[in-house]
């Protein structure tokens, strides 16, 4: 670490720059901000992804951008990389306003990005990928000898061993990531943006990556590191900015904070409103999950002995930082993923490893996290999407024929009941906003009076009005006597909706809490991996 860098840190420790209006006078004494974002706003249909973001990145630091899925991290970095144009706000590079109409413009300003999903051509060699898009040498033929030499030197200097002549498809994921980093370095990037770089790496590779990053900043590079993993923030960053629902919650020096604080900031510190809830009546056990194990898409353990019970007429919240088994849990319960061990029973009858159809027929409704890619067929109409699961049954079909009139009647009713805003029931759902799509999914899933509702991130990405409506709908189901399993990364939501909650960490249940009395600090600690000691809250 260079002495110059240390003195910067000392200055930085003067204060937390959570409020850009009161930027420290010390900050203005040196041109130390590589890049500064002021009031960045980016709207997508039905959602504000970035809502007035202020952020400054200092030269030679590793700056973590921490936030849940949908907090706006990736949108922000795409703006910085020229993939999106901000609707409002300003980007300043070394104090001068700039615009990035395309990634090329960002590259010209020496900003490099390592995407979560690599942008490499698998059939080309490493060196070919590196020079792709560069105008090097004269004529149509790139000069690979020089490229190779420069690549080897870079690889040597920063601990990024990779064979320049290997084909990319032959490389392991970790090696491919090194190629992406080398690509940015080859283009002499000053600022390197890394979007969730560790999600594809083994623990050993993560350690090696962190070492590389430290070497890079020692040589004057600046790194923005996007993540939702608290461990990584603590391990690698100098400063951390926490995003939540498109806004900056805080920017902190990593040395002055800890994991529970960050967890709390990330999922919402202030419980803004507790919903009006009818008192919880002690129901009968409805869903029993016993020692369930499952693996994720890459074959790695995702659930490791999960047990819990959902009673009728209660909301059981599942809290946790994303990627700790929540997605797999929802899939196992709804018949979309096999449990490798354990037992699932609804109303006492076994449902383990039956089909998605069997789960639906048994009365399990599923409000999926991927409401557009999984929950709807975007090219089909509202009417057809509403019978996506019930088309097999009366009144929507008789024999082999569909009954369009029954479907139309049902659709008109659902559109009115759930206040789905659309020109007509024949409108294709790809034209609907996020909030209306979620209303449609709820209308469909709740139409058969399900016994259990598995709701994954039901308000994620929705505006305030839709959020409130969705929550009211879920509570109405609870009051009707259904059991609700609410999976959410929004702790505020979990605390205000749930009767009881469990915390998942690395595929295990850290403990069960009563939502009424649960302390945010306690939940934050459990989300970071500490187990609840005493039984009962």
């Amino acid at each position, binding site marked *: 670490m260079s002495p110059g860098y240390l003195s910067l840190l000392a200055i930085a420790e003067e204060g937390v720059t959570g409020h850009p209006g009161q930027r420290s006078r010390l900050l203005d004494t040196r041109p130390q901000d590589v890049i500064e974002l002021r009031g960045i706003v980016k709207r997508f249909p039905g959602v504000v992804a970035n809502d007035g973001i202020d952020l400054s990145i200092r030269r030679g630091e590793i700056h973590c951008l921490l936030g849940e899925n949908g907090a706006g991290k990736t949108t922000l970095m795409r703006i910085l990389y020229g993939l999106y144009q901000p609707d409002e706000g300003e980007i300043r590079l070394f104090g001068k306003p700039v615009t990035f*109409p395309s990634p090329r413009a960002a590259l010209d300003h020496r900003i490099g990005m390592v995407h979560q999903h690599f942008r490499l051509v698998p059939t080309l060699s490493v060196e070919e990928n590196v020079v792709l898009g560069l105008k090097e040498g004269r004529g149509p033929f790139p000069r690979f000898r020089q490229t190779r030499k420069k690549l080897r030197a870079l690889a040597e200097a920063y601990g990024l061993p990779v064979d320049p002549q290997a084909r990319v498809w032959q490389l392991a994921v970790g090696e491919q990531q090194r190629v992406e980093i080398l690509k940015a370095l080859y283009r002499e990037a000053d600022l390197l943006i890394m979007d969730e770089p560790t999600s594809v790496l083994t623990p050993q590779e993560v350690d090696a990556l962190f070492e590389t990053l430290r070497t890079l900043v020692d040589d004057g590079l600046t790194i923005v590191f996007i993540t939702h993993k608290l461990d990584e923030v603590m391990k690698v960053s100098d400063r951390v900015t926490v995003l939540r629902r498109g806004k900056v919650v805080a920017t902190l020096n990593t040395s002055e904070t800890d994991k529970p604080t960050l967890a709390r900031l990330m999922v919402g510190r202030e419980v803004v409103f507790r919903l009006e809830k009818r008192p919880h009546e002690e129901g009968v056990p409805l869903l029993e999950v016993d020692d369930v194990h499952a693996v994720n898409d890459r074959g790695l353990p995702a659930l490791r002995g999960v047990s819990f019970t959902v009673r009728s007429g209660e909301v059981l919240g599942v809290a946790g930082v994303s990627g700790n088994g929540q997605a797999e849990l929802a899939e196992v319960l709804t018949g979309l993923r096999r449990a490798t061990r354990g037992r699932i029973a609804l109303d006492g009858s076994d449902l383990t490893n039956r089909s998605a*159809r069997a789960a639906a027929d048994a009365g399990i409704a599923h409000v999926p996290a991927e409401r557009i890619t999984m929950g709807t067929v975007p090219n089909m109409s509202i009417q057809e999407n509403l019978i*996506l699961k019930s088309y097999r049954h009366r009144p929507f079909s008789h024999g082999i024929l569909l009954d369009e009139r029954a479907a139309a009647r049902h659709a008109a009713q659902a559109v009115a009941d759930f206040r789905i805003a659309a020109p007509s029931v024949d409108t294709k759902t790809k034209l609907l906003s996020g909030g209306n799509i979620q209303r449609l999914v709820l209308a469909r899933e709740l139409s058969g009076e399900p016994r259990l509702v598995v709701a994954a991130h039901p308000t994620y990405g929705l505006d305030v009005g839709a959020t409130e409506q969705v929550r009211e709908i879920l509570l109405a189901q609870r009051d009707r006597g259904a059991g609700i399993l609410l999976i959410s990364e929004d702790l505020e939501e979990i605390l205000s909706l749930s009767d009881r909650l469990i915390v998942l960490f690395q595929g295990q249940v850290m403990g069960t809490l009563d939502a009424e009395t649960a302390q945010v600090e306690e939940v934050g600690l459990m989300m970071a991996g500490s187990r609840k000691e005493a039984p009962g809250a």
Partner: protein
Amino acid sequence: MRSPRWLEIERRPLPSGRTIFLVSVAAILGALVVAGLFFAAYGVSPVRAYAEIFQGALGSWLGLTETVRRAIPLLLCGIGLSIAFRALFWNIGAEGQLLMGAIGAAGVALFSGLPGPLLIPAMFVAGFLAGALWALIPAALKAKLGLNDVITTLMMNYIAIYVVEWLIHGPWKGPTMRGFAYTDRFPPAAQLPTIAGTRIHWPTLLVGLLAAVLVFLLIARTKRGFEIRVVGENPHAARYAGINQVRTILFAMLISGGLAGIAGMGEVAGIHLRLLSPTQISMGYGYTAIIVAWLARRNPLAVILTAAFFGIIMAGGDVIKVTLRLPFQLINVFNGLILFFLIGSEILMHYRIRLRRR
């Protein structure tokens, strides 16, 4: 997408029916213009060439009947492909399924020994089953092993071609054919009736028109059709909704291959009256039908129109050969150009392009 200064390119969320129609017509016109360059290269005025083609295909009773008889196999294969494409199964194998249908029908005609009145119905069934079976192989390979459907269906075509070749050179070679590579002529009871003085084997045409209506209703109005559409539009949603994708794809391919098989049956029982060389049985109907189905935007009713259009083009190919003394293969150039322009126009359909005013 970045656009140059003088152009404005804007995504349009949903192309209207009118847009789709206009863009399709524009694609055909584009292909006609470019194909015209080839006529010009042969020293024939494109205007005269097209006049001859349409005059030849539509301007006389004989031309008209030839157009219809070419349209029959295109109709059957095109309907079948439209249902496979709806399920997002890229069936490039209608040609092979057609040939297998021809084999099935020929087998029944020559060797079944069924009494006369039962022979034709049995040949329809055999043609359908043989084509369907041939289509189910790549469908099962994709559903169970994830093998690429484009490649397997395409390769199955070559296998079918060699099966036909083998049969007509080997075990099925007709003893009365004096060494030619044909089977024997079908018995009269196994020959499809034709409209007097033409080569239009009307029972097949009737089956084709009926199939267009039935498949349209199947896709639009039945549970199975709903499943096919969901699987084709969003496989994730299909899985989520508990739709059995394997069964859905197998079903779509059963119909798809079966209809192509009936097309093959019609060719051997209605035109050639024997099983003979694959290039004579088909003239690439199974491939042209891909364009027929695409131009119809995977709508079985629209296939009636597009199959007729390509019937004109193919009948016009004979005119090219006879009147203009140009190679018949120009038709293939034209077909290729249409597909090229159609696929290109898919992009146009989803973007609105305007000149930017200064």
